[in-house]
């Protein structure tokens, strides 16, 4: 008996090993290495600078750096813009495409296309649209008599321009998840509401939305994590500029690590932002879930 148990354990171990190894090589080792790096002075381009242990110096520098907090704020601004619009549009479109109308199945598939495009390509597509002078967007705006907007070349518009591109790409994600959730809702409560005479808005507000809430929270959670990491689109469209208008956290970290070559500072910034985002997002979503529970009581 104990013989078989031991053998079973060994077999279990053999099956687990590859997963554990892959996890270690791809996740744990880089994390630990980055943590180690964050306590060091490490300039990749300047080997003559001693790569020594500097304690919390990198962390202190970040936490007293205006640029870091600017990047953090810009990231949250962008998140707020994209997430809110994606939520409203995504749910709206989902409500539309789940109607039993002709062509909706096709529309639903077509709407998923932006999501399947690589962010760099999305960036390039929008670069063509935004391109000063030659961009299509300004051409169309011009047709309705509005002046050209310096989309990606003004500090006022650039972040909005990035947000629009991101919204275009990721609204389908919310749409898809919401549509799936909508279709899994049982139809009877809607018939009951129809008979009771509840208005469409009331039905949406009090019947549909509360039932979608858990799904929407999960979708937003995933989007929030993604939005915090946004890089490709910004790199293609503005590279953080003009000025520092679109300098989000990932670009700040990139600049520290690969322009100033301060790998230690970059690593420390990664950790600080990781902690901040984890705490804030957890707090935010916990409170959302709690409000849902209390609302139900």
């Amino acid at each position, binding site marked *: 008996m104990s013989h078989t148990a031991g053998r079973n354990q060994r077999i279990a171990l053999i099956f687990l090993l590859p997963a554990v190894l892959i996890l270690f090589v791809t996740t744990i080792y880089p994390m630990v290495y980055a943590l180690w790096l964050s306590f060091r002075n490490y300039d990749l381009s300047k*080997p003559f600078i001693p790569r020594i242990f500097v304690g919390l110096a990198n962390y202190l520098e970040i936490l007293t750096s205006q640029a870091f907090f600017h990047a953090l704020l810009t990231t949250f601004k962008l998140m707020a813009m994209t997430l809110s619009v994606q939520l409203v549009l995504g749910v709206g479109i989902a409500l539309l495409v789940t109607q039993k109308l002709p062509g909706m199945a096709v529309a639903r598939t077509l709407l998923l296309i932006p999501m399947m495009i690589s962010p760099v390509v999305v960036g390039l597509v929008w670069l063509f649209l935004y391109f000063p002078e030659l961009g299509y967007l300004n051409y169309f705006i011009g047709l309705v008599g509005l002046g050209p907007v310096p989309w990606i*070349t003004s500090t006022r518009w650039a972040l909005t321009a990035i947000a629009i591109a991101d919204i275009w790409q990721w609204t389908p994600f919310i749409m898809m998840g919401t549509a799936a959730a909508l279709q899994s809702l049982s139809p009877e409560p809607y018939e009951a509401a129809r008979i009771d005479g509840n208005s469409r808005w009331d039905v949406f507000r009090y019947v549909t939305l509360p039932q979608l809430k858990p799904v929407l929270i999960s979708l937003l959670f995933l989007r929030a994590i993604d939005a915090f990491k946004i890089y490709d689109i910004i790199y293609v469209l503005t590279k*953080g*500029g*003009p000025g520092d208008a679109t300098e989000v956290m990932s670009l700040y970290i990139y600049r520290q690590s690969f322009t100033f070559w301060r790998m230690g500072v970059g690593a420390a910034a990664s950790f600080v932002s990781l902690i901040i985002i984890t705490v804030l997002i957890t707090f935010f979503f916990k409170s959302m879930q709690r409000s849902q529970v209390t609302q139900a009581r």
Partner: protein
Amino acid sequence: MVQWKTMVWAASMATLLGGTALADDKPFAGVELKMLGIGDTSVTRVAPIVGEFEKQTGIKVHIDQLPYPGLIDKIVVEASSSSPTYQLLWVDSPWVGLLGEAGALEDMTARAKRDAKEIGLDDIIPVQLQENTWQGKLLAFPASGMIWMQQYRADLLENADEQANFKKKYGYDLAPAKTWAQYRDIAEFFTRKKGELAGGKPLDFDLYGASQSYSRVQGAITHDYFPFMRSFGGDYWDPKTGLCAMTSDAHVKAAEYMKSLIPFNPPDYLGLMWDIQSGFMERGEAAEAAYWSVRSVRLTNPKEATLATIGKAGFAESPVSDAGPQPTYTGTLGFAINAKSSDKEKDAAWEFIKWATSEKIMRRFADEGSGVSQFRKSILSDPALQKKYPYYKVLLDSQVNARRRIFHPFYQDMEENFGVELSKYMAGETPTALEALSNACNAVNSRLSIFPLEQRLRWIQDVPAEVLAK
């Protein structure tokens, strides 16, 4: 089947025999070199003809062409790798200090001296060689020489009606600007809307008075600002401390002057990266541009610039400020050898550099009409070529009294910090030029100040090139 085997055998024998037979005049036959290059004139011209070099020497050269933004990042990563992929590196002269201090580049002094005659060392404008040195060592070899100068639409500036109107409005004759004040007047004068007349013809596009780089991407704005501030009498460093000293009156005036040109620039000026900026000039949509000569050759080539068909490009030395004539900044785009390559690869790479930068090849580029911004006196002073490329004379003359560009190991900190801060100032985010410049300088100095004074002073010292010593 038998026939096929025989053929293979014959072919391999032929290769073997051929290899032995050619060993003497092709000592590097079979060496393969990879080059990390840029997708711009200094590489695009030579890339299509590397087959000729292979035929001559048996050295196979493969060139990867990348855009300028991000290229230095890849070179740094490449330089920090213990088993490099690239033996040949394209180097912009400001990178020499960074890569030199890291020991990433092979010193070519001895080789250049040994082959002085073959490469025509005396024919090269001295400051172009100096540009590529670090602590006196020659770490890259010029492949394209640059100067900061003004380019303008000669057809408009020489138009009689325009000249008359200009005189009426500004009270002096319309001519290539001698001063920055004139440069701005000309920019203002030629800022016109689509449909208005320019040179007697209605415009089918908006005409901008000037086209300058204001983009922060890869410090494009910094590269424009530096020669401006030089022209206003400023420089990079405090010679006593070795720290960034770009906050004087001259520096502030230069930044303010750049900002005063914005109304005459395209509305998306903050997005004007080099290629976009020079595009306005190439399409004839800008009346003038103070810019590096790196792409000037395109302006007179109808295949590369509409301007050559709808108008005419003119060139002149950089205007001067109240500070009077100043030595302007030069620039060089060069080829370097990765210090971590094997000796044989280094020698082979040097053979390639000699060939690719030789007077023969350079002259061929010039003759073919495309060409690159040149660095050889013999070519730049050739009267026939000067006629064909009006900017050659400006390029040659302005280098008589010129100063090399920034070469500090912390060059990237300068480029990036000034790029962001100046871009913010131009966008109106930072209220004053002084604040923007101070922010940028402080950021740079926060990194420099931890180093000993002695080291800092060494970094800003331009040791004369050993290769130029007689």
